[in-house]
């Protein structure tokens, strides 16, 4: 894409910066840009999907080159596709691969926190509703002792959360990662 580079160089600094701000500047994977700036239970992922790292390939760029014009044009297209992959998709592959841990995925922490919060919240909501329900029948001051039921639900819920996270890891390694799955499998010592 030397024509693009030359064109961009000819632009005033401000216009060139606006171009890069809007389309991105190509180059290597920007994996570091995807991160969670929230908490595990309430994540906020940072990714800029407006990156469009190439400005197009001029079909007539090598029109005068009868010997290698088409090859050079194909080469430009391949480079542009590679830039696109590196800028828009490789960071997401890195993010997905980075979620795999030895025992499951990094999503486990958030899921456990949400399970804990949901079950404890459900128990508390039931207590309040029970007292109000009986008051409607003129029975005052009754408290629901659901601590055993809530504890039992919590233990079951947390175990289920952990099991499902392990399943999730297996599903990811079993093909959900596309061609990067074998790399992770081998890096973890699996065959």
């Amino acid at each position, binding site marked *: 894409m030397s024509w693009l580079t030359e064109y961009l160089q000819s632009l005033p600094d401000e216009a060139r910066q606006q171009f890069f701000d809007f389309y991105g500047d190509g180059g290597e994977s920007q994996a570091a840009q995807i991160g969670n700036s*929230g*908490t595990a*239970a*309430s*994540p906020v*992922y940072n*990714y800029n*999907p407006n*990156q*469009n790292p190439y400005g*197009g390939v*001029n*079909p*007539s*760029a*090598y029109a*005068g*080159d*009868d*010997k*290698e014009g*088409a090859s050079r*044009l*194909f080469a430009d*297209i391949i480079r*542009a*596709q590679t830039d*696109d*992959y590196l800028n*828009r*998709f*490789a960071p*997401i592959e890195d*993010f*997905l691969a980075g979620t795999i841990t030895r025992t499951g*995925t990094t999503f486990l922490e*958030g*899921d456990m926190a*949400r399970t804990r919060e*949901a*079950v404890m*919240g*459900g*128990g508390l*909501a*039931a*207590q309040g509703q*029970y007292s109000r329900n*009986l008051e409607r*029948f003129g029975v005052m001051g*009754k408290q629901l002792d*659901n601590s055993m*039921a*809530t504890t039992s*639900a*919590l233990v079951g819920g947390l175990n*289920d959360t952990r099991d499902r996270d392990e399943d*999730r890891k297996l599903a990811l390694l079993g093909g959900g990662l*596309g*061609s990067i799955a074998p790399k992770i499998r081998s890096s973890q010592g699996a065959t």
Partner: protein
Amino acid sequence: MGGGSPDRPDESEAYRALAEQSATYFNRYKDVFVPLENQYIQSVFDAGSGAAYQDAQNTATSLAQSQFDQRIGGLQSGMLAKGVDPTSGRFQGATSDAFEKLGSIRGLAGADAGINNTDRFLGGIQNVVKMGQGLASEAMQGQIGLAQTAEDKIRSQFSTDFEDDQQKSQALGTAAGMAAGGAYNYYGSN
């Protein structure tokens, strides 16, 4: 004309046309599909946000509550119709059991919705990875699909639990009725 060695033959006209066509297609992809792909990628990351989890969990707990409200109403009306006194151990015991179930089912439904949302988010991420690798992508399950799954599970769980409860209540009611006769007929005495 241009760059290559003079010994090399010219590229065929068809080959040059193919390269130009590829460049044109590529530009079309950039102009038309890249913005759409970016929208999809954004929606995938939105599905993994705290707000999406909150929505999914609120929907599930609301469904659980709605199912429970219908069933507790039916359970208590049934007992009242049979003359069971709300101050009685039978009435309060059945009510207490039901609310214990509510707490657990509501909590687990919320937890399940959270885990499903993580799966949904990861499913979307996997699709994006496949897009980047040029593989076919699968449809991402939407919130409506998740809500339907949650509703089916909750309905099934309440059905099982309430049938168990009602069988136990009937057994308890029979025993209590044998022991105490009609003494608990609250509405009958008012």
